């Protein structure tokens, strides 16, 4: 269909962007790659008075190395740029692999990682990977810049910690400690994850020293499975792999979470998939971290 009327603004600097957002507040929507906003405009599900396009704002496009050995990914960097960046491949193979799973080539060439984070779709792939990687979100606004953990930034279905006059300048991915993996069950041809689990495991002397597990697709938001992370700590890798295979700890994956059931999949199936995919991702990461010792 045709969008309801709106005003279009394309600021060229962050100062101008901040001024526009301060002026229009909640009646404005920010346009980056447009892969979520444009369909919402066309179906009139979104009816902002003003659309503020980031395209011409200087300094938001970079995928660059961070001083701490990690990455800084600008608001306008596309999934495709991340997927093909040698820098990302070297510093965060998980993020590279997960970016390649988004939509199809057309979507990846237009859509942005930051756009996906701001959309906070509860079934998106990249936010899960970012949460497992301890990534942070660089939120800018009239009061300056604040840094929010990715897992805290995602607050509910299509809800974030962003205030109306704020925008996300970049996502920061710290240097990856340990090994990481992502497993998903896709929904249909170009679908989001019906369920997906990202994990990162660091071993010390053969025992789990650090564990991160983030789950997407099954709850109203992408979440960190803290109960499971805690339960993994300190375990000897080989024994842990064995007990995971035996189905232990499965309940920890969804502990305390409201699991969704709808026409696409029942809550029971989603709960099953979350536990299964988390197990598969952990086993994969354990195997890599254990350097061939973990079966």
């Amino acid at each position, binding site marked *: 269909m045709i969008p309801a009327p709106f005003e279009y603004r394309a600021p060229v600097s962050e100062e101008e962007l901040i001024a526009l957002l301060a002026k229009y507040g909640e009646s404005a929507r920010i346009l980056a790659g447009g892969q979520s906003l444009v369909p919402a405009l066309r179906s009139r599900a979104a009816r902002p008075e003003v659309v503020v396009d980031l395209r011409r704002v200087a300094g938001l496009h970079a995928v660059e190395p961070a001083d701490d050995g990690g990455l800084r990914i600008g608001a306008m960097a596309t999934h495709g740029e991340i997927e093909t960046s040698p820098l990302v491949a070297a510093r965060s193979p998980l993020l590279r692999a997960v970016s390649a799973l988004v939509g199809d080539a057309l979507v990846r060439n237009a859509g942005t990682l930051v756009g996906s984070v701001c959309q906070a779709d509860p079934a998106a792939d990249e936010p899960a990977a970012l949460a497992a990687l301890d990534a942070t979100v660089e939120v800018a606004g009239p009061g300056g810049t604040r840094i929010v953990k990715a897992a805290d930034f995602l607050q509910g279905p299509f809800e974030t910690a962003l205030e109306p006059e704020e925008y996300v300048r970049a996502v920061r991915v710290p240097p990856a400690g340990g090994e990481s993996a992502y497993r998903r069950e896709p929904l249909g*041809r170009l679908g989001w994850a019906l369920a997906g689990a990202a994990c990162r495991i660091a071993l010390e002397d053969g025992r789990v020293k650090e564990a991160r597990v983030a789950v997407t697709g099954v709850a109203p938001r992408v979440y960190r499975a803290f109960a499971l992370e805690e339960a993994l700590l300190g375990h000897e890798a080989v024994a842990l792999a064995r007990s995971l295979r035996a189905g232990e700890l499965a309940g920890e994956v969804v502990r305390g979470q409201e699991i969704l059931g709808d026409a696409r999949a029942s809550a029971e199936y989603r709960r099953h998939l979350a536990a299964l995919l988390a197990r598969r991702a952990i086993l994969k990461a354990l195997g890599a971290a254990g350097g061939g010792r973990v079966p």
Partner: protein
Amino acid sequence: MVQPIDDLFGISSPRRPLQVAIVRGEVARASLGRIDAAEALRAPGVRGVFAYEDLRRTCAPIPIGVPGLEEARFSPLLALSDGEVRYPGEPVAAVVAETISAAADAAELVRVSCAAPLDVATSGERRAFSSTWSSGDLEAEFRKAEWRGTFRFALPAEVPRPLELSSVVARFDPGAGTLAALSSSRSPHALRRALSAALGISEAKVRVVSAGGGGAARPGSWAPVRREEILVAALARLLAPRAVSWTESPEEHALAAPRLAGAAAEVTIAARRDGRLLALRADAAIEAGAGPAAPDLSPLRGAALFAGPYAFLAAELRLRGAFADSPPTDLLAVRGGAFFACALERAIDEVAAALELEPAEVRRANLYREEECASATGVRIEPPRVREALDRLLERSGAAALRSERRVRRERGEAVGLGVALAVEACARGRASGPSPPRAAEEWSAATVRVLETGAVEVATGMAPRGPGLERALARIAAGALGVAESAVSVRFGDTGAGPPDAGASPGRSLPAGGSAVERAARAAEARLRAIAASILRVPEEYVQRWGGDFAAGDRSVSYEEVCRRAYRGSDFPSGPGIEATAYYDPEGPAVACGAHLSLVSLDPETGRARVERHVAVHDAGVLRSRETAEADLEEGILRGIEAALEGAGGPSGSEKPELRVAFLESRSPGNPIGARGIGECAYGGALAATANAVADALRGLGARSVDPPASPERLWRAIAEARP
């Protein structure tokens, strides 16, 4: 000469067509109350808001009859709802404005009040129609059979997902009293007839041009007539001389576009213990939605081969249709006959499993023999071709090796399944046969071939454009018959102002029927060229031969170009000036396409995800005009079939695309002069059935019950979980 279509609509003029936004009802079976358009009428750019009452004098209901059905009571085709909203999305009002945005903005201001559902209390089946067909003594065969089994199978209704959606623009010229419409319909002559009947304008004063679109395998509009097209034409009449236009939005398509009907069947088969099939009864319930989307659609047409290529001694088909609170359906064939084919092919696998026989062998042993003349439904389908397709399939796919691969992998704990299916499809059906109903509308094709003074060739066909493949094939057929280069031929599609009446494009008939008409018209034109050449060469016609492009007799010859020039500039024509011929082609019998499919499927028992690892198909698609186009058509049909088998709305993603291997037999179809047969639709049914059989085989290997298509991961996971204690 035909007027350029752009001028008819003033698309390029400063006053562009008026745009229509349709207000749709939200609840099913509700009585329509007041429509308050006051606010919408005050909105900028709005030229009018119309409800059923406003159109009543302009636009009459078109009765929908479906030949061959009993107790059929269908609501007529109406531009807008006349008081009842039968399904969510039914059009109730139209807003006309200068731009699409103005129309869409104003449509949101129209207030429609709907009373509570008319008869919520009425549950249970609302019978739409029924029909029965049988041959042989079914009861006797069932009585004396050593074995009988009943099997249930269902396919849900499907919303086609085209690449391009429906669109129409229409303009009424009050001076001339003519109506012109450019539409995405693929049956321009059927649409012209409907517009003429609805608006009371002489059919000769209505011109419809089919703009095609949507691609061959995923048509934007399979329905020959859409109620929105009648609405737009009626508005064009009221708002003349302005042109009026409507384009379907993706949301409207998902909500209210005509669907492909869903159906459920109970198939009972009687057999001997050695696998000889004796009798078949198919009891099918069709979900008709709000009824047929257009006149002349009959579910019986897809049932013409419900007994497949097998030599049942008795067969019976019982059909009943029920209304549902959903958009109108095609009814036409219940997915082009794929439903009946798939139900039967699944049942045969269950028979083979119950009798512990090899499924491919059961099929081969039961193909009817040539001397039996015809299949159980009386349609001749050339069993040797089916047998050859099956044998070539088993050989090409290495079926024996695949069976041992399956055993080895199962021993390793993997969940794998093999499925075979045969597919037969009666394309370009022509006259009635078996359960096919008597013909209601034209099912023939027609074409006009005109050779111009310069030797250039114009072909006009009533077929709608379906992509460059068909255009090239038709040009090649005309060029071959006329003895000219393909580049000399240009093909004009789907213009009622240019070509003779034709049933239009529908699956499996473009080439067999449309191509045959072009071939006959081109041969008739060539005969005229030959007559003129004979008069130039002063010899009897039978002495004229073709040498390259030239016409020759003995050592004298005259070039093709000279013959064409003389046809227009000469003075002594043997039979009048000009070279033009129109031919109607009425298929003598169906051009039966057949194919054999094999699918290797693996399951992840933990997630329930099924994946087609390999799919092999051997098809007899008749004489091929372009191998490349035929392969693309076949592969597209197979991928659509796999999608329908495994995930319905989803399907194989790019990375999961199975390994496809296809081959053609290329036998000449005796059903038509160019020996063509259909491809894609037959492949769809075959791939759907083979994949469903492979999934069932994999589940059987796990001790789990079978699952109807689409076998979504969750349904497979549940079936597998149930089987595990």
